[in-house]
């Protein structure tokens, strides 16, 4: 097994608050890795550190053996690390299709001038991008909504659109911040299958933050538990579930 993402001794302080405290973990290629913990445990901060949105106070982050600490978010995204946000962040006034097309932009090879002039190559590239975007919308079940503005979509559709947009980056690592939040029970059940399916289809490694315990336990190969910024357990779901430190963190016993 090769390590895809290596978090080494990362810390992030906000003023006096230590949101992430000397956390070390690695994500193996091809696995589905769950990140759980009570509210305020630092899960989203850890995601932000991994995607460059928040610079670390100390520590080292490497992707495929290369140190990427301190790279800008767009540079990290170009390495194939895509994410969704806990509070969906779409381009609200743009249509669903445009949202996906925007994320495909980084794969465009034609220069600006060629695209403006509409050279043959630029045109065929635009056509391919459009087809790929339509495929992703189909995959996420949004074909009928392709021309709806993102902000007018139902909440569940917005979450799926954000997923389609992340997939448009052609990532190797996908970070999902609470993908099941706000979904109804039926949607939650189909989400597991969907995540497994996209892992298969796109050869993805998936790292997800989730509160919905059955989802995490049924889906993840390994689970890490954060509490007050510290990593308190790491292992396969069954072991972690029975770890006394985890039980204490959740029940406060």
């Amino acid at each position: 097994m090769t390590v895809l993402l290596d978090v080494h001794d990362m810390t992030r302080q906000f003023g006096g608050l230590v949101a992430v405290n000397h956390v070390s973990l690695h994500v193996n290629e091809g696995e589905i890795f769950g990140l759980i913990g009570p509210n305020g445990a630092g899960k989203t901060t850890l995601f932000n550190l991994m995607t460059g949105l928040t610079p670390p106070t100390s520590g080292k982050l490497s992707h495929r053996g290369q140190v990427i600490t301190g790279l800008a978010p767009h540079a990290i995204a170009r390495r194939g690390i895509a994410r969704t946000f806990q509070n969906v962040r779409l381009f609200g006034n743009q249509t669903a299709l445009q949202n996906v097309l925007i994320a495909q932009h980084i794969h465009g090879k034609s220069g600006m001038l060629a695209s403006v002039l509409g050279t043959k190559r630029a045109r065929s590239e635009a056509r391919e991008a459009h087809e790929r975007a339509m495929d992703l919308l189909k995959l996420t079940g949004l074909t009928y909504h392709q021309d709806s503005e993102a902000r007018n979509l139902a909440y569940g559709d917005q979450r799926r659109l954000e997923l389609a947009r992340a997939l448009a980056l052609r990532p190797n690592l996908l970070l999902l911040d609470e993908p099941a939040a706000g979904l109804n029970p039926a949607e939650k059940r189909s989400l597991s299958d969907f995540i497994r399916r996209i892992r298969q289809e796109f050869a993805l490694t998936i790292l997800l933050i989730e509160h919905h315990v059955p989802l995490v336990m049924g889906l993840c190969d390994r689970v890490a538990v954060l509490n007050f910024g510290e990593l308190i357990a790491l292992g396969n779901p069954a072991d972690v579930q029975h770890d006394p430190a985890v039980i204490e963190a959740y029940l406060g016993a």
Partner: protein
Amino acid sequence: MVAMVLAATLALSLYLPLMSGQLSLATPGFYAIGGYVAAILSTKVIHVTGPYPIPLILGEMILAGAGCGVLAVLIGVPALRLRGVYLALATIAFVEIVRVLSLTVEFTGGAIGIFNIPQPFVTANGIEYLLIALPMLICAALFVYRLERIGVGRALVAIREDELAADAVGINPTRYKVLSFAMGAMLAGAVGALSAHFLNTWNARQGTFDASIAVLAFVLIGGSRSFVGPIVGAMVLTALPEGLRAVAGIGELPVWLATLLRDGRVIIYGLLIVICTLNFPQGLIAPRQPVRKAVKSS
């Protein structure tokens, strides 16, 4: 007519940075610089007898545009770290710096400016300038039209919508903001170069804060979400003072009203901005809403 076309092109130069959500009022500054480039070249460097050759004007426009583009990148990298109204303030400061510099530096002719800029055409009203100005506007408009439909334009819009999310999908916000700022500056510089010939004289009054507001009014009133808006806004508002002057000349109006109509251009622009932002927040030319398809419940 020529003034209308030039104003429309200037409005597009403000619209370009706005595509990426950057409210830059630097257009008149680059316009002034472009004008000085043309004025100095054609009066002090190149000496031609008879009508001034049009290819030389085109050359000046390209040179002015390129110069302004380079300058815009130099200014843009630090300035575009500012957001919203702070960026607007910084760009107003830039316009002021250009104005004060051109008043004090010697080669711009100080307060008098540069006059007797050679003309390529013989008629007095210069309507032939349309031969250059109109193709320039059409090219600029076509460029923006295409830009909105390709990846780069989408990247700009993404930054306008949500800079952080754009960053997270691999778009370098600084790079694209500087790009849109520089494209606007190049266009403004080229318009300035042409205007210098058209107006025959060039001085520090060409690029002022008033001009910033006027160009902003073009865009706000016309509509800032599609490239047609700024063009229409600029043409209407440039023609407006002439129209008002004609109305004021009717003679039966009270003196204060006639004076307002004749000289109160800035007041009327201001009023129009207020009225339009209240009643047409998207501008007179709002983009078509995409036709909603019947949504199948599935």
